[in-house]
């Protein structure tokens, strides 16, 4: 008997096929939401200009500035006259949006922020949609039961001009997370543990659906953290079936349907979940109950251990030898207690209000250790305001940390916020690649509580020791 049960991915994919895949040609896939930012679009707009093309659906396109944005008020004030590549890139993006009729939440918008924070916050990210952006962390939006993936600049041009992409259907992978996350263990720890288990190429060619009791129990912020890191396992996308948690998050947001249309939309969204018995090309099991706070020790997110664990022996693994040499860490040593220089709390992975609260809970009535710099960068201006209303900014400042304007900041070190060569950073971002946080920077990825704990002690620290 043919298995008629469909996965959520199958359903969303089928609904967006303009013309089906054949042996000779990929499917033409319709895109419902195209998010854009300053770094990966300028060359695409140039192609449109060169070929005399317009943007087919500016109403399905939304822009904001994040990667190159200054996070200091002085930097923001000076942008119009700053003769820097970053400033030119931002101003060119805002001009491109104006010229092509695209709504841009630019530097002067109170709604701007990191593109993967803004989409959900504005309610533009909705279940069942196909969502793309010239950024690999577009997988974040899958937390809402959308099919969301990163594309390159040529494909950005394709979507601008035709609202479509040429795509072969990826394979599917179910990640079943049973059990319950223990106290003091975050969604970041969950996804780092997964990447440690399957490796940085473990999801290649696949769209992941995260399932199971531990996933259902996650808040939307936590789900976004998990889906965000799907690309760090090499996956095309990550997604989680929408449920009451999803609907409650979206209800009343600016771009979601209102009134009777809301109820109709929720009814449709309920149908998206994978059917009982839907088949996946690959399945992975993870027990949330067995997890601890995680921290990376190497130069990719798969090089990760529990914070109370030991760095593995290198054996004859040249990749691990090279990674530890770069990191200046000893094989076999405990990671806890390693001295650090900088703590960065921010990025599309962990800059949302719950992340800032988790960090503030550790920082409250404590001080940043001598010689350590703490940088807290909210994911959006709206999150910044919400955090300030709760007094989180005051907690950060009282601890001796820097409280900044929103942007990608030290996650990618494009805007001038960088770690410095040879220095150790505990970062809530997504990549610990060589030089990711600036040339020579040594990055240890962790969740917000672990990062805040390191700021207070000046060393890699199990955050549960500082929780009351």
């Amino acid at each position, binding site marked *: 008997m043919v298995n008629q049960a469909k996965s959520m991915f199958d359903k969303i994919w089928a*609904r*967006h096929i303009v*013309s089906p895949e054949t042996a*000779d*040609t990929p499917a*033409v896939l*319709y895109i*419902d*939401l195209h998010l854009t930012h300053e*770094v*990966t679009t*300028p*060359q695409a707009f*140039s192609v449109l200009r060169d*070929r005399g093309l317009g943007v*087919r659906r500016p*109403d*399905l396109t939304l822009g904001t500035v994040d990667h*190159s944005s200054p996070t200091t008020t002085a930097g923001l004030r000076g942008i119009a006259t700053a003769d820097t*590549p*970053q400033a*030119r*890139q931002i101003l060119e993006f805002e001009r491109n949006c104006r010229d092509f009729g695209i*709504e841009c939440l630019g530097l002067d918008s109170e709604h701007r922020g990191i593109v993967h924070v803004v989409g959900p916050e504005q309610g*533009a990210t909705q279940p069942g949609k196909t969502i793309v952006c*010239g*950024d*690999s962390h*577009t997988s974040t939006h899958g937390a809402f039961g959308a099919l969301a993936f*990163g594309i*390159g*600049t*040529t494909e950005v*041009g*394709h979507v601008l*001009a*035709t609202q*479509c992409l*040429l795509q072969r259907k*990826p394979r599917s992978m179910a990640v079943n997370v049973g059990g319950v996350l223990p106290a003091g263990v975050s969604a970041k720890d969950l996804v780092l543990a997964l990447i440690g288990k399957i490796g*940085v*190429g473990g999801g290649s060619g696949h769209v992941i659906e995260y399932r199971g009791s531990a996933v259902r129990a996650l808040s939307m912020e936590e789900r976004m953290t998990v889906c965000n890191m799907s690309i760090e396992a*090499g996956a095309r996308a990550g997604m989680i079936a929408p449920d009451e948690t999803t609907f409650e998050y979206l209800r009343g947001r*600016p*771009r979601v*349907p*209102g009134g009777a249309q809301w109820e109709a*939309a929720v009814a449709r969204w309920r149908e998206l979940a994978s059917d009982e018995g839907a088949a996946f090309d690959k399945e992975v099991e993870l027990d949330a109950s067995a997890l601890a706070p995680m921290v990376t020790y190497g130069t*990719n997110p798969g090089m990760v251990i529990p914070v109370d664990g030991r760095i593995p022996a290198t054996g004859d693994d040249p*990749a691990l030898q090279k990674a530890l040499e770069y990191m200046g860490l000893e094989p076999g040593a405990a990671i806890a207690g390693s001295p650090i220089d900088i703590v960065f709390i921010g990025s599309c992975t962990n800059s949302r209000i719950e992340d800032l609260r988790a960090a503030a809970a550790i920082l409250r009535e404590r001080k940043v250790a001598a010689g350590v710099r703490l940088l807290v960068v909210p994911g959006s201006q709206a999150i910044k305001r919400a955090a300030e209303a709760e007094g989180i900014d005051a907690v950060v400042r009282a601890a001796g940390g820097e409280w900044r304007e929103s942007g990608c900041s030290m996650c990618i*070190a*494009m805007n001038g916020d960088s770690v410095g060569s040879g220095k150790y950073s505990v970062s809530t971002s997504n*990549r610990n*690649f*060589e*030089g*990711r946080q*600036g*040339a*020579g920077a040594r990055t240890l990825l962790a969740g917000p509580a672990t990062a805040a704990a390191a700021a207070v002690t000046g060393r890699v620290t199990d955050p549960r020791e500082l929780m009351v």
Partner: protein
Amino acid sequence: MDPITRIHSRTLVLPATDIDTDQIIPARFLTTTARAGLGRHAFEDWRYDADGTPTAHVLNQLDPGDHRILVGGHNFGCGSSREHAPWALLDYGFRAVISTGIADIFTANSLKNGLLPVVVDEPAHRWLLDNPGAEIDIDLEACVVRLPGDREVAFHIEPFARYCLLQGIDQLGFLLAKNDEIAAFERQAGPDVSAATNPN
């Protein structure tokens, strides 16, 4: 884009696994608004010390013009979606990347720019890693890599991308020609599909 049928060159071997796009082109060079000129920053932090002094890295010892085929370790091109990575490799002089696994977005980006992503089996990859500088032939028409000694290794490349590379045409023209179908799709699509993102 010029048609590509065959690439014949010596290899340059970077055996590290998981070579990510931040190594290929560090993020600080993404502030450009052009495609051109990224080659001089390809693998910048491997090729230069902090003070700009060239390192002893193999990339600094070989003439890129004679080594147009990059052989990388498994899972090449992982990380970000930056198309600046294939732009930088092409501008540097590479025309193909060979590995046992090449990341999805990097593959898609490479195919659109005429950088051939070639995934080969483990034994062929091992031979290539062990024989840096080998003169080999990548035949896109036959989808085989020819190693010295008449050894042939088959590879797969997405058929439509291969067709476009062989013809020297880009994929946007194909999509633009679908305009009527796209318009028809938009007219019949259900309520969640193609719904405007603008505030109500």
